């Protein structure tokens, strides 16, 4: 029924099957929307946050999706600025995933604030000394950049692309995409960094506080680096999942292995710096503020040294090493395991920087504070996941996300079925426009 909207030369499941999957996911989305409305209408008393946990699950989710969405800016940087042309086969999906992550982050932030109608105050009454101000500005600007990067993909829908204006608009937008990729990388450096700075500047919280380089705490650089390192893991992991769900090879091994290798080296170098940072914090920063580093990992039911081990070794060094060595990189199982561990590692990092920071007692007579999120918090955190799945489903079905899909999955007898209609590419090329072809 919707075959006219599906890209040419590729096969999709039946509309009914698609709608069934869409409705199941929409059910989850609806659950999240109900929770979101409850938070907006009744207030944040719907959550299990309290005066010890002003920052909780949502802020973690924000930091986590932004780190995982880092694959978009880093892939864009590699493709458009550094010139790793092979990544043209992954960049569309990276942009889509980035778009989902960043729009989700903005949505979560809109739920998280006590007075959402005043959110614009952050721009109007901006405190230039606050890391959160930098986050708000760079995040909004980078979301605009991601939207600009996503628009040409939408315009490449088979029917939209028939309109000459949209066709040429998409063509020209691809032509200037390097400028947006560079802008995106610049903005990402600052918002990823300032998200790291959010915790690192808290000089009243010795667990999170870090020494500074100029005005930026070490966490500023660590967050940017880790997003560039682990973001591609998420892009590649979602690509792998999409291939499993669609039961198709969508991207050739070469671009996947290239991005996996770069990600591996980024992770290993990040881990070197992160390990030094952890050592310096444990032996210098924390003791200078009156704390033995072990204090932060005992006398509570959740935050033990296992957490530190999981973040540094299991979710850091191991995926990094798995990805830099060719045999484990080229093996699908170890590679995918590395992606998963890497994603888990960066999520644990964001978790401890937000929630463990809140949990640790600072006054000598205070006690550890534990927290379990309410169902409304869980539902609104799952909401963006459902939204992301829906957007991926729709985009995959109707947009030419994977340039190599047609080649990797040829449909017998479809060679002569190419429409030669108004709005096709001027050169008569029947394939949709791809960054590489511009």
């Amino acid at each position, binding site marked *: 029924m919707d075959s006219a909207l599906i890209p040419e030369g590729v096969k999709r499941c039946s509309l009914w099957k698609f709608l069934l999957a869409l409705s199941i996911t929409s059910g989850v989305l609806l659950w999240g929307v109900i929770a979101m409305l409850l938070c907006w209408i009744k207030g*944040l008393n719907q959550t299990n946050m309290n*005066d010890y946990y002003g920052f909780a699950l949502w802020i973690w989710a924000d930091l986590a999706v932004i780190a995982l969405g880092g694959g978009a800016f880093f892939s864009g940087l590699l493709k458009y600025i550094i010139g790793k042309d092979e990544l043209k086969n992954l960049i569309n999906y990276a942009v889509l995933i980035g778009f989902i992550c960043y729009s989700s982050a903005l949505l979560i932030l809109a739920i998280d604030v*006590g*007075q959402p109608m005043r959110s614009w*105050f952050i721009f109007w009454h901006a405190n230039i000394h606050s890391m959160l101000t930098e986050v708000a500005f760079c995040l909004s600007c980078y979301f605009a950049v991601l939207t600009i990067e996503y628009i040409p993909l939408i315009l490449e829908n088979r029917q939209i692309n028939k309109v000459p204006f949209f066709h040429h608009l998409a063509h020209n937008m691809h032509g200037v995409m390097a400028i947006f990729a560079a802008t995106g990388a610049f903005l990402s450096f600052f918002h990823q960094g300032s998200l790291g700075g959010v915790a690192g500047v808290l000089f009243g919280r010795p667990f999170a506080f870090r020494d500074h380089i100029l005005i930026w705490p070490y966490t500023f650089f660590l967050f940017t680096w880790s997003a560039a390192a682990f973001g591609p893991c998420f892009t590649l992991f979602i690509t792998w999942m999409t291939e499993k769900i669609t039961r198709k090879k969508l991207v050739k091994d070469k671009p996947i292995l290239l991005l996996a290798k770069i990600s591996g080296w980024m992770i290993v170098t990040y881990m070197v710096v992160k390990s030094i940072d952890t050592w310096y914090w444990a032996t210098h920063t924390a003791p200078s503020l009156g704390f033995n580093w072990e204090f932060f990992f005992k006398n509570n039911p959740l935050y033990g040294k296992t957490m530190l081990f999981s973040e540094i070794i299991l979710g850091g060094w191991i995926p990094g090493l798995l990805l830099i060595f060719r045999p484990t990189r080229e093996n699908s199982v170890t590679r995918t395991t590395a992606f998963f561990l890497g994603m888990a590692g960066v999520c644990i990092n964001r978790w401890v920087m937000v929630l463990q920071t809140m949990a640790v007692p600072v006054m000598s*007579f205070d006690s550890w504070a534990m927290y379990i999120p309410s169902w409304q918090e869980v539902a609104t955190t799952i909401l963006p996941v459902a939204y992301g799945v829906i957007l991926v489903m729709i985009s995959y079905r109707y947009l030419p996300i994977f340039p190599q899909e047609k080649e990797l999955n040829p449909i017998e007898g479809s060679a002569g079925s190419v429409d030669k209609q108004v709005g096709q590419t001027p050169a008569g090329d029947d394939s949709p426009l791809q960054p590489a072809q511009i």
Partner: protein
Amino acid sequence: MKQEHTQHRSKRYGMVIDLDKCTGCGACMVACFSENNVPFKKDETDKRLSITWMKVYRIDNGRDFPNNQVCYIPRPCQHCAGQHEGHSPCVSVCPATATDYSRETGIVSQIYTRCFGCRYCMGACPYHARYFNWWDPVWPEGMEKYLSPNVSPRMRGVVEKCSFCFHRYQLARDKAYANRRKDVKEADYQTACTQACPAGAITFGDLNNPGHAVHQIVKPNDHVVKNKAGISIIGKSQNPNVFRMLERLGTNTKVYYLSSREWVRKAGDNYIADEKPEDMFAEQKKH
């Protein structure tokens, strides 16, 4: 010229709380509630959801009877100056400038109508002195008539905290102006908790004014000193029995505590192994 100097000298309002006098009666908390229209709920069992601008902690020395000793620590907002005047943990992080540091008085204010409830300031405050309005205030029937007209009640979704009864400062300033005075008298500006304390444990005033009792007790150092970690300490007390909470973090609060008991003074900060409070400033340097 001398007169001009005093006129232009900024004030640094602060308090010292004598922990040896405090009985933990909670009168300061009640006075604060009443004075500042602090909202409360029917069920206040979860203290992490209760708004208590002034909160009294109970600590003990960890020893068994008969050597067990108890101390009560009243904790208002500490009105931190930070590493340099105005760089309070909360003020520096607020993205919408909804909390501000007055260089005229040293008071950290909260602008309720500008706060959009991101709660970053709460995360930044190690004293848990900031409170979020998880609910809209609901007053018992008829109680609206007893609310203070000088303090605006807060709505759901914003952060609030102790203001050192700033409205009283404004009234005292008005009074001084009406009486053709330029300076606010010590007695004209006192916080509600200070006046309510039956034991007289709280002394409030201008830490910069040698004529004020608080200055005489605290004897704040005019110079900025650095501790062993290189952190600037502003207004370090020269009274050996006076300490501040978490002083080594460099929050540079304006609430001081006084106790003759060493274990109480030591409870004010964190120390590793066999560190002692006096070790922190072994190599004090004038800055």
